[in-house]
């Protein structure tokens, strides 16, 4: 039997969920014996080269590029997991949702104490930059998501448990204390 194939990505997250995957420590060496990694920052594969079994998504969508990548993952993965608070509900970046993008840009580039020399009031607006969305969207509002792993980040044990459950077809143990924002 061929190995199950896993892909991962970080959208509008902080990479903490990927770090938590690495926090399975020695088990990472077992994991790479058991599965094959495709598109993921953990290896160096940057575009999908085949259909994958499991896609792990960190982060929500804050710009047009995040949306494209998420749709690409849905197309190429049989099972999609929202991993961590940002993917599940926007997380900390979604704290900007009550505020206009203009106000956020103004604060960062015009009003701060170290941009007083920006007298020409320059804002980043080049064609090369992807468009910022009006708000930060959780992944399941963009595509269908099959499973949700809570935590900020989900603990290494939880991520490991989820992968083992999926790969062996067994029920996953979700004790109440992990189902929270932290």
């Amino acid at each position, binding site marked *: 039997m061929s190995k199950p194939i896993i892909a991962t990505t*970080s959208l*509008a*997250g*902080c*990479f*903490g*969920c990927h*770090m*938590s995957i*690495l*926090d399975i*420590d*020695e088990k*990472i*060496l077992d994991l*790479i014996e058991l599965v094959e*990694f495709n598109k993921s*920052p*953990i*290896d*160096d*594969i*940057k*575009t999908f080269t085949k259909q994958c079994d499991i896609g792990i998504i960190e982060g929500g969508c*804050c*710009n*047009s*590029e995040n*949306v*494209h990548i998420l749709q690409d993952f849905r197309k190429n993965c049989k099972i999609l997991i929202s991993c961590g608070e940002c993917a599940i509900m926007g997380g*900390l*970046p979604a*704290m*900007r949702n009550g*505020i206009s993008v203009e106000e*956020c*840009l103004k*604060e*960062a*580039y015009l009003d*701060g*104490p*170290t*941009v007083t*020399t*920006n007298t020409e009031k*320059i804002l*980043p*607006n*080049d064609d*090369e*930059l*992807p*468009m910022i*969305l009006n708000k930060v*969207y959780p992944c399941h*509002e963009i595509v269908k998501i099959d499973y949700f792993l809570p935590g*900020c*980040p989900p603990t290494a044990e939880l991520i490991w448990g989820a992968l083992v459950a999926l790969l062996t077809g067994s029920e996953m143990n979700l004790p109440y204390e992990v189902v929270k924002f*932290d």
Partner: protein
Amino acid sequence: MTKKITIEPVTRVEGHGKVTIHLDDNFNVAQTRLHIVEFRGFERFVQGKPYWEAPVLVQRLCGICPVSHHLAAAKAMDVIVGAGTGEGLTPTGKKMRRLMHYGQMFQSHSLHFFHLVSPDLLFGYDANPGIRNVIGVALEHKDLAVQGVMMRKFGQEVIKATAGKKIHGTGAIPGGINKNLSIQERDFFLKGADPFNADYMVNWALGALEFFKGYHKANAQFIDNFSHFPSNHLSLVRKDGALDLYHGVLRAVDHEGKKILNDVDYQEYYKYIQEEVRTWSYMKFPFLTSIGKENGWYRVGPLARLNTCDFIPTPLAQKEFEVYKAYTKGKPNNMCMHMHWARLIETLHSAEVIRDLLKDPDLQGDNLVVKGKKCNEGVGLIEAPRGTLFHHYKIDDNDQITMANLIVSTTNNNQPMNNGVNFVAKAMMNGKKEITEPMMNAVEVVIRAYDPCLSCATHALGKMPLEISLYDSNDKLIDRKNK
């Protein structure tokens, strides 16, 4: 309820890092740009939050070195609650935070070396990317992979014991710390079975350094010359000039070692540093105000720190520092790839600091928090793994944040990374009309040397997906490649 999301028609690759190259009429490189395409808006949306939330909120900028943000924000809040800067805390508070920070330095530097750089060294910079990655290392050099995993784990466990969690902990609070280190926790690190103990980590750090030095010896031409250019260097140093990653005064030297910022108090950092905004990147371009936009840019991180400090206050790292300094005859080191060497000397230093700190009985003290007279403004600086990190907050009488200004480490390296890309483009692209594979590799190698925390400033783990676009003198796109 329906939701409308506008999506651009052109699909782009996952391009957190994006490079454009413009050629002149003779197909020589006229202009290069490294675009950073992510924007969060932290400065605005933390406004209105109570000040004590900042250390736990703002660290969520970055899951790769959250401890740096956690501590920089806590240091700013120390000032706000009247606990003074850096050294004002109780011995337990101060030392627990130091232990947390050096734990993070150790794990982050180990991650960078073993997970991101070692594949290039082991397989060669031009090897098939399908093998040239950490999984390839694990499959073909298992001993080294185990070592990398265990070193990172050791640092992460130190963070958990001091901050409560490995990622996004809560240990540092305004004016101090919320726990001490129990004897049991201490002995977990000091007396663990080999290899999981502090002494073993020092030895492994020495081993990693030897591995790099061996590679350097065999590849001196490449390591010494690749993207080598002069620059200013900036970091915190301890008051007596020692390397200090947690606290100090702000110092900058020019490419020849002349002090251009002389050990100033960082509470007034904004008098010395400004940031330029450019239309083509969300990442700003910091510079020393006294020198100006054109020439005032500087480098931060391991290379800069070993250029600004006078000595390293632990014996093994100091010995390595002397060898390192002798290579440039005591002058500042401006060789891009020597960043890896400097980073490994800091890894060794961090292992020594952790080992020595663990033996300090102050960690078992129970006087954890200092209180003082509250004020409404505070600045916290720290040497994060990737360089100097600035946090600056103002609060109102209701204890709500009214202003936040952050200059993250990688932002400080914005101009140097752009110069590095320019250097590589000129060396490899002049006269060419298409982007070659060696060119793509070279751009990636130069950016990776800075270990850009692409989470703080953008995203993606060291090995960022790159899109390179080539334009002719009429701004017409003539080639685009993804890596």
